[in-house]
């Protein structure tokens, strides 16, 4: 049940079972805000070539993205996390671009759910 935007709707439905449309809206709103901030911060950390910060932010983004079923964003974040851990972020800008593309789709896809409350 993963669609072309990389959203796993099983995860969204699990959230709906847990707390209805209201919880889905609340979680998605929080996620969109948190992930937006983390992606900006990742761009900064990549520019500053700071592997420790890249690993830390990428891990949080991965884990939050997995929580809402944003699988492609989660997997790009994981690639960045591993680069950060390895201590070399020279390949990071390319992954950040792929992450940006995946994020655009996720944002388009999830935004309507944030308004469902």
């Amino acid at each position, binding site marked *: 049940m993963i669609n072309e935007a990389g959203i796993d709707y099983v*995860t969204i439905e*699990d*959230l709906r*079972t*847990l*707390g209805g449309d209201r*919880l889905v809206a*609340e*979680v998605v709103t*929080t*996620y969109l*805000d*948190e*992930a937006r901030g983390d992606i900006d911060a990742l761009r900064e950390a990549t520019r500053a070539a700071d592997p420790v910060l890249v690993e*830390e932010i990428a*891990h*949080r983004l*991965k*884990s*939050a993205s*997995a*929580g*809402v079923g944003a699988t492609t964003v989660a997997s790009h974040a994981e690639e960045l996390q591993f680069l950060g851990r390895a201590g070399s972020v020279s390949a990071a800008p390319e992954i950040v671009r792929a992450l940006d593309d995946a994020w655009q789709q996720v944002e388009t896809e999830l935004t309507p759910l944030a308004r469902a409350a």
Partner: protein
Amino acid sequence: MLPAVAMSERTEPTPIGSTRDRALVVEDSRTNKLIAVSMLGQLNFDVDYAENGVLALERLDSRPYDLVLMDIMMPRMDGYICTREIRRRFPWPRVPVIAVTANVMTGDRERCLEAGADDYLSKPYKLDELTAAVKRVRTSRSAAADPASSGGPIDTAWIESTEVFDGESVPALSIVDVFRDEARFTIEQIFSALVVDDARQLYRAARTLRSAAANVGALGLADQAAALERCGEHGNLDQASSMVDMLSGECDRVLSTLEYLETGYHQRAA
């Protein structure tokens, strides 16, 4: 190298009010925090939140918790260090810690358990997985003996004579909360006395615990505390070290029994 975190001053005992259990979610992502809070709410927990390990220790210092859901990878102080610190600084009552990690790496589970966690979940987890983990960590604790049977940790004559669990009105401050707080404080003192070889501190803490135990009819615990008190008096710290695990185990039994009695009391009062 552990960060130097000063023991803050002890806070007042938690006032009685809610009989719901309280969980602490330690998690740096706001999204995942929201999901965890909502799942724990379904399991009837009141939930507090800390976004890193340092804040988690502050929370745990300010009040008792019935459960900690600990994210392992966090900035500032990671979950391994934080769990170790919880075990070192708050030896009793032993709060159940469920470690949570988003990494699927072999050895994660072992590392979590080795740090002092009781169970382990990998993210993202579903409600039924969390429910099962909560059940597992609880059954290890809730093996309370029937308090009315002889040989239980609380003297039956005390239970019969006391009005505490039978009175008309809810006690202003739960005797269980008072006992939990005193036992927690004195056991921390006893453990730290053994670490720094301070016989005098051991003596004082054991004496306080003996009297707290006697106040709730926990005669076996009072005997054990009295034995520790003598160790402190005579400087037998090695002998004391061999006794503390049994003592904290007995404390668990006493607390579970008191909680059991108190629950019955609240049900009758309702």
